[in-house]
């Protein structure tokens, strides 16, 4: 209990520092630390799947995205003198936010006991899915439509980001150029880390059916490795008009839809799985989805096309 109190206070402290810091870059660094602490909180809340996702995606990829952005937006992030809020606004906001937090805290304490839960139903039906991880069962079976829509959401966010490119560089290479310096420490670390990271990512995806892990966590790790390789200059970002890239991005949602429609024939409903081969069918969805999501996440961080030539 004491550990939890300390952890909660630490999370709140770092979060408060993220809000209060003057420099945006410092705030982003604080945010990454907050994310890692939050992953610890998730472990304490007996949610290891979420802890993995928070650490890799919420802290890692988001942090990388924001660090890159804060470096590029350095000059825009200094507020003009007329823009900084006055004391009155700050006071009013403090009161409003305190009231909101107090209200939410009250609701949390007023939550009914015993808590309503779907755990018994989830546990009872998990045998039909052939899975051992109940969270994966929810994501890929009971509420698979949410996951399907979510893969489309990711893809559309990417289209939205790509739409920001100027017309003349459409179809080009995303993100600023990264020169590979063969002697730098970054290149060395990347050459060491990326293959290991890829293996870790595949492993985490694979065990997700019976242990904490799954496609999102695995895909995030794969995406992180890809980004690391791109930053270190080991590989270059592909131009967004390449057919193979488009097919890779689309393969996951397409397979998801395809198997969903096959469910009409094989198991009498959209996204229903045949009783005996459920796990195999789920795997058939998960593999392309993991690859597609990994590519999408990597490209989301890379940003819109910025140049039409490699250099």
């Amino acid at each position, binding site marked *: 209990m004491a550990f939890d109190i300390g952890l909660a206070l630490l999370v709140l402290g770092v979060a408060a520092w993220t809000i209060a810091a003057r420099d945006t870059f410092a705030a982003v660094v604080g945010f990454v630390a907050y994310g890692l602490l939050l992953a610890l909180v998730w472990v304490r809340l007996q949610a290891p799947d979420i802890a993995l996702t928070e650490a890799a995606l919420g802290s890692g990829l988001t942090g990388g995205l924001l660090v890159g952005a804060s470096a590029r937006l350095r000059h825009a992030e200094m507020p003009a003198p007329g823009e900084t809020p006055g004391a009155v606004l700050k006071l009013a906001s403090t009161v409003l936010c305190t009231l909101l937090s107090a*209200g*939410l805290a*009250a*609701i*949390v304490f*007023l*939550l*009914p006991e015993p*808590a*309503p*839960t*779907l755990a018994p*139903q*989830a546990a009872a*039906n998990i045998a039909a899915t052939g899975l051992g991880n109940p969270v994966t069962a929810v994501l890929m*079976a*009971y*509420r*698979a*439509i*949410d996951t399907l*829509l*979510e893969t*489309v*959401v990711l*893809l*559309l*966010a990417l*289209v*939205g980001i*790509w*739409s*920001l*490119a*100027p*017309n003349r560089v*459409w*179809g080009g290479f995303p993100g600023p150029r990264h020169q590979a310096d063969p002697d730098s420490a970054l290149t060395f670390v990347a050459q060491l880390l990326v293959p290991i990271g890829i293996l870790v990512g595949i492993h985490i995806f694979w065990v997700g059916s019976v242990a904490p892990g799954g496609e999102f966590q695995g895909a995030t790790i794969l995406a992180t490795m890809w980004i690391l390789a791109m930053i270190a200059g080991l590989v270059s970002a592909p131009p967004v*008009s390449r*057919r193979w890239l*488009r*097919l890779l*991005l*689309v393969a996951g*949602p*397409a397979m998801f*839809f395809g198997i*969903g*429609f096959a*469910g*009409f024939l094989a*198991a*009498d*409903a*959209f*996204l*229903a*799985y045949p009783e005996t081969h459920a796990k195999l069918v789920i795997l058939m969805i998960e593999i392309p989805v993991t690859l597609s999501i990994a590519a999408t996440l990597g490209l989301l961080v890379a940003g819109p096309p910025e140049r039409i030539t490699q250099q």
Partner: protein
Amino acid sequence: MPGSATAGGFLLIFAIALPLAGVLFSLALGGRYAERVALILMPAGVVVAVAIGATVWHTHDVLQYFVGNWDPPLGVAFRADGLSATMMVTAALLICGIGLFARTQLPVPRGVEERAPLVFWTLLLTVWGALNAVFVGGDLFNLYVALELLTFAAVPLVSLDGRAQTLRAAFRYLLFALFGSILYLLGAVVLYGTYGTLDIVLLSGRIRAEPAAWAAISLMTSGLLAKAALYPLHLWLPPAHAGAPAPASAVLSGLVVKAPFFLVVRLWFDVMPGLPEHAAAQVLGALGAAAIIFGSVVALRQVRLKLLIAYSTVAQIGYLFLMFPLAVEPETGHPWSTAAWTGGVLQAVSHAFAKAAMFMAAGLIAEALGHDRIAGLAGVGRVLPITVFAFALGGLSLMGLPPSGGFVAKAMLLTAAVAAGQWWWAVVVLTGGLLAGSYVFLVLARAVTDAIEPLSLAARISPGRQAVVLALALGAVVLGFVPLRPLELLQIGRPDMAIEAPR
């Protein structure tokens, strides 16, 4: 157990899956085919929407589907009642019209993939699929994902032309939309923590009048109001809708902004039907009234045509929220049998057609003249007569003059206000109509006067393109033939259905 899946429920899946599958094809095949994929899917989508409407009408029952054969609360359900079917048919027809219009606005060049056409057609299809998911969604978290999909498709449409001004408008739109989503999610977590499900039908059975429920509904409604740009959370809408290209503005003002309103209706009348909410409904109505007055007055002061139309959207959205204090039926307690229910939905549908036509007309005018300053509109009436006529027809609906769907909608809101003894809303409706008449007249008066010097046209507009705009405006007019009684279709699928109007 909320019943079982009904025959024909698979149509609901097709309504969502067809447009989204089209997006996947467009991306994979490349931008040159995006338009073709969209144009093939549009009639198919209309067929699916009409089929859903016909099935709902014939069976006089909700069309229900459990995805993956998992029953709620564990699984996710899709449900289409008369209200859903109406909105889906509206969306399908409108997207068709916008698609036909946009063919000529965003020509697809041969041989090379260009940014704007691929992005536009992909986002248009996504908006369609997301809208259908919102209209049939039966689970509050699934609706959250659908709302996010809608936002991510709508925001880049605003900044399609890449200017700094539209980028700023798009960012502000995104911030408001994300703010709304967070509040919505906050309400959802309170609901799940208290009742153990996010399925709409199951929730309606479990919800009680306790602080947690009030807090959740308030949070979710506030979030949806931010997305619907109801006063005072409307600041993002005018620059966003005015800055987008004309077909994008049409879909944004006509359809995208109606989805959060639809969800507020679902929340208030489906999730918490029995809970007493008179005071809160009056608050919603008051915000709607403020939107009507404020939006119309500011529209009068606009210099640019597209901004005037955008502020008009802010005002017309206010009418939608007058439905809440007025849809109170004292005898049976069934809100959907009131005139206000039909009036509100009809306002949403006819405004969709009218506003889409007006934005597209403004787009053609801007293309012909090279600008969209209202002061410089003299002579346009001679050059683009069909377009200006279509604009005028759309204006009829905004003003609430016959024959138009807007007239029927506002008349029903008026009768509901008088019948309920809440005459102050009647004053608001009438004032709003006068103000709308003023700003529509402002534009038309300029447009039909002759230019002092001969107009130098930036482009010639073919009558074919103007005909599409006219077709949509006529859609709003055709709705004027809906009888001035509560509509039976809109009452199908409501719990304890009581049909008010004799056939």
